[in-house]
């Protein structure tokens, strides 16, 4: 749908965790707020609302993106997967690796890390430095990253340097 008239609200239709969602949204509403407040999917967190911390990372059409830097209206016609959708029934093997390695403490950052990792192709990463680079867009204040790096390296069979 195209609009010649500039609007303040917009009817969107998108797929969220495999389910079609139709809503009217205020055009200024952030995607993160739509996910959290309108859809009640509170596993997506807001740590900065200006695109630095990565706590709000979701998967949008197969890419990890910051949901605080997208508008809800931009999700129209797109497919979104949040941490709730990534998790399915049990823990994915990356989530299990996190658990084994004690890669989370308060857990506030964790859904963002999991979302980023969920779409990364392990074959692109050959060493610890590459893994650190990959997750450098997700801040964690609790773990010092040590065990997050350990979990990812273990899961992807990367020997730590």
């Amino acid at each position, binding site marked *: 749908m*195209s609009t010649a008239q*500039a*609007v303040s609200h917009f009817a969107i239709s998108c797929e969220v965790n495999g389910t079609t969602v139709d809503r009217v949204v205020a*055009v200024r509403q952030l995607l993160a*707020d739509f996910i959290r407040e309108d859809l009640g999917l509170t596993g997506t967190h807001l740590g900065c609302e200006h*695109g630095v911390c990565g706590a709000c990372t979701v998967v949008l059409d197969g890419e990890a993106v*910051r949901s605080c830097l997208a508008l809800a209206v931009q999700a129209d016609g797109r497919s979104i997967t949040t941490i709730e959708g990534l998790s399915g029934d049990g823990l994915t093997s990356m989530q299990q690796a996190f658990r084994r390695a004690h890669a989370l403490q308060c857990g506030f950052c964790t859904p963002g890390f999991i979302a980023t990792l969920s779409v990364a192709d392990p074959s692109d990463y050959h060493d610890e430095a590459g893994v650190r680079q990959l997750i450098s*867009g997700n801040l964690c204040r609790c773990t010092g990253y040590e065990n997050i790096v350990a979990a990812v390296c273990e899961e992807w069979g990367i020997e730590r340097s």
Partner: protein
Amino acid sequence: MKPPLFLYLRPDSLEEALAAMHEHGDEARPLAGGQSLVPMLNFRLARPEVLVDLSRVEELVGTSCPGPSAISFGAMTPQRAAERLEKVRSTCPLVSMMLPFVGHVQNRARGTIGGSIAHADPAAELPALCLALGGTVVARNAEGERRLRADGFFGGPFTTALMPDELLTSVELPGVRREDVAFAEIARRQGDFAMAGVVAVRETAQTAVRLVAFGVGGTPVRLPRAEKILEGQELTPACIAEAASAAAGEVDPIEDLHADGRTRRALVDALVRRVLGELGSEGAR
């Protein structure tokens, strides 16, 4: 930290987009990948009346090779998509080298090639890349198209030669071989805007090097004095050192929270030596 009120337009074609820009003029703000604009909205530092969302303008997405040794990016091509393309790596490896330094992977998934260049952050990689390669920026408004050379496109911090109703539609970059390009930057953290960065591009004749520094002034800047020293010269350590100190002398560095002028000069000096050293050793191979 929530965006202020604005109105929203989502054109489906370039024509509609240009019409919208024409109609709303100064009040309109094109929204590309949003990785710079949306934070500014969230801080309420940007207050456009109308946001023109370009994300559905298919004509603006895509990468093509207009000539055997050139590459053209539609303005709305996501940085992450460009980063992944083998065609980009083989035709214009400097792009593939510099893109990973643009923000973080999540930013590049939405951030676009054209958006970054049009935003013209003085510390951003893509404007510097465009300038160093001597690229061409293609702009359009309802009246027609303009082709603008990168030299002269960046007028100041966040300021370009684009007119208010104009959209950047594509960027054309000449392909330069891997051994003829080098790039380095120093930022406080991975993914931050650089305190200083330097790009070097050896021109085909092998006798001249285009040097561009970014993060040090209001725009990415050529380093003509350093380039002059290098002209027709072998990249010997002595020549490199001379060019580096000329470069450090000719930049007019800004001072901010993260670095003062003296630091930026020192960084430019070190970075010029680093990139020229790399170029020298590549050339010798």
